[in-house]
């Protein structure tokens, strides 16, 4: 991986999320590098979704968020209002939201709310590019309640990209997609990142695609960081075993490549 082009464009330091006095996420710190993908991994309940939502501001009300620093592109995110934040980052939730009776076309239009408010507007060229690459052009006239889970998921990701922001949080984007769709999605994310320089911060359980996309990894367990760092150094079978409490094996594929896969105990 060529790091000469990468720039640190932000960081988060000692980020905590609490319910009352109980920590759900404790002392998470990492730097955000422009144009790269950081993957957050960990078992169910380790706090991945909470971490992402608390950074994006879409967390449940009643949670307390504290951190020492949270900066993106030199701006202190904690002091920004929602509108300013919406120009800096977006989030694709784990379970897409939808409105019955709303057409996909209009969903994309409303997705540009931060631009529409600021006297900007639609970017039809960009939209065309996104829906063609993600193969969702045929869904534009459909109503959201008529879509399958996978279609809804792809549209939800597309809408966040259409918002055209420097940082995008993705909560389990590969979940519930078939292998072919996962492949196109991964290819699309990679080419998008190369062209636009968007930073992806992604929570995922998908060991194959996370390994392909990420340049940095953070392993969470019970709300705290167990391991973090560059992909090759951190993504090892020992670390994976400590995090997930299950054995992992390296599976070789063509071209000296491969991936890690959990090995069941049956």
């Amino acid at each position, binding site marked *: 991986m060529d790091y000469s082009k990468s720039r640190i464009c932000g960081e988060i330091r000692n980020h905590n999320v609490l319910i009352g006095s109980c920590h759900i996420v404790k002392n998470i710190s990492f730097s955000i590098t422009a144009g790269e993908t950081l993957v957050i991994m960990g078992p169910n309940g380790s706090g991945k979704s909470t971490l992402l*939502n608390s950074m*994006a*501001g*879409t967390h449940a*009300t*009643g949670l307390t968020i504290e951190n020492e620093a949270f900066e993106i592109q030199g701006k202190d995110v904690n002091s920004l*209002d*929602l*509108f*300013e*934040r*919406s*120009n800096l980052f*977006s*989030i694709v*939730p784990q379970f897409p*939201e*939808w*409105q*019955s*009776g*709303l057409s996909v076309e*209009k*969903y994309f239009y*409303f*997705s*540009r*709310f*931060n631009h*529409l*408010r600021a006297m900007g507007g639609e970017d039809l060229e960009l939209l065309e590019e996104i829906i063609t690459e993600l193969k969702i052009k045929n869904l534009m006239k459909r109503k959201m309640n008529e879509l399958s889970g996978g279609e809804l998921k792809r549209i939800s990701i597309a809408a*966040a990209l259409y*918002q055209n922001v420097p940082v995008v949080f993705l909560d389990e984007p590969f979940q519930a997609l078939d292998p072919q769709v996962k492949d196109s999605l991964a290819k699309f994310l990679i080419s998008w990142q190369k062209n636009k320089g968007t930073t992806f911060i992604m929570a995922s359980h998908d060991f194959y695609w996370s390994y392909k996309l990420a340049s940095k990894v953070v392993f969470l367990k019970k709300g705290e960081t167990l391991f973090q760092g560059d992909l090759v150094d951190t993504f090892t079978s020992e670390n994976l075993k400590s995090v997930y409490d299950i054995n992992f094996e390296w599976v070789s594929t063509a071209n000296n490549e491969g991936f890690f896969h959990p090995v069941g105990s049956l």
Partner: protein
Amino acid sequence: MSPLSSNELDKVIFYQLRLPRVLLGLIAGAILGGAGLVFQSLFRNNLASPYTLGVSSGAAFGASLAISLQAWLGISFSTTILSFGFPGLMAFLGALITIGFIYLIGKTKRNFHPSVLILSGVVASFFFSSCIVFLHFMNDSYNTKKIIQWTLGDLSVLGFDVFWVIIPVFIFFTLYLLKMSLSLNVMAIGDNFAISRGLNIQRLRMELFILISLCVSIIISFTGPISFVGLIVPHIVKKLWGVDFRENIFPTLVFSGVFLIFCDFIAHIMVPSMILPVGVITSFLGGPFFLLLILKGKEI
């Protein structure tokens, strides 16, 4: 003083009774329908109405207390402010108290989350309803009937004084709704979506609940809480014009007004030589309407 000729009498009836009544019906219907449309989206519940937050109970209690006081103290506060009599002003006060109560709870608990607003509305409704029933018992049958009649909702109006208040409220209401249509659309998709696109949904919910409740309160302080308009018409309009607020607000306002004056027309002719309160007819139509929706299998 010489008696009016038949021609002059017709003019008086038309200009002082009929015309203002129709205008009031159109405006009151429009505000109730528009409020219902917005609240159904705000609460993510198609059974929501302008009265979900209990302002109708607060207003009804205010009016009932006023009628009771007039009976017990033997006074008749016949002075009116722009056609709002003592019951009307007390009704508005009751509605304001309800709005204040919901605001306080919404502010302290989960920041105006819809479920908190609805539950506080239920509390207010139950409390004021039981107070009203208490007043029923404390009054003789004549005044109890007056109280019940007020809570049914009535479009009776004499002259145009009330429009000094009602027309500005209507203009504000319409312009406000049209201005918020984009934000309403964004919020309707989902909380996560709205926040990530930069819409402050807590502030929007608070603003919507207060401003719309105020407009509704002003109307029902004069007419009494007319039921079902704010529930039925938004349903029909959404089925025909869709869920996009940029396209369904205007039809809602128009058809809610038309629906109300249509109900008032039936209220005039249903029982000979008697004008029923319009709220009786709107309730009559409400039940069968829902039955139709259920039988046709369309999702509510």
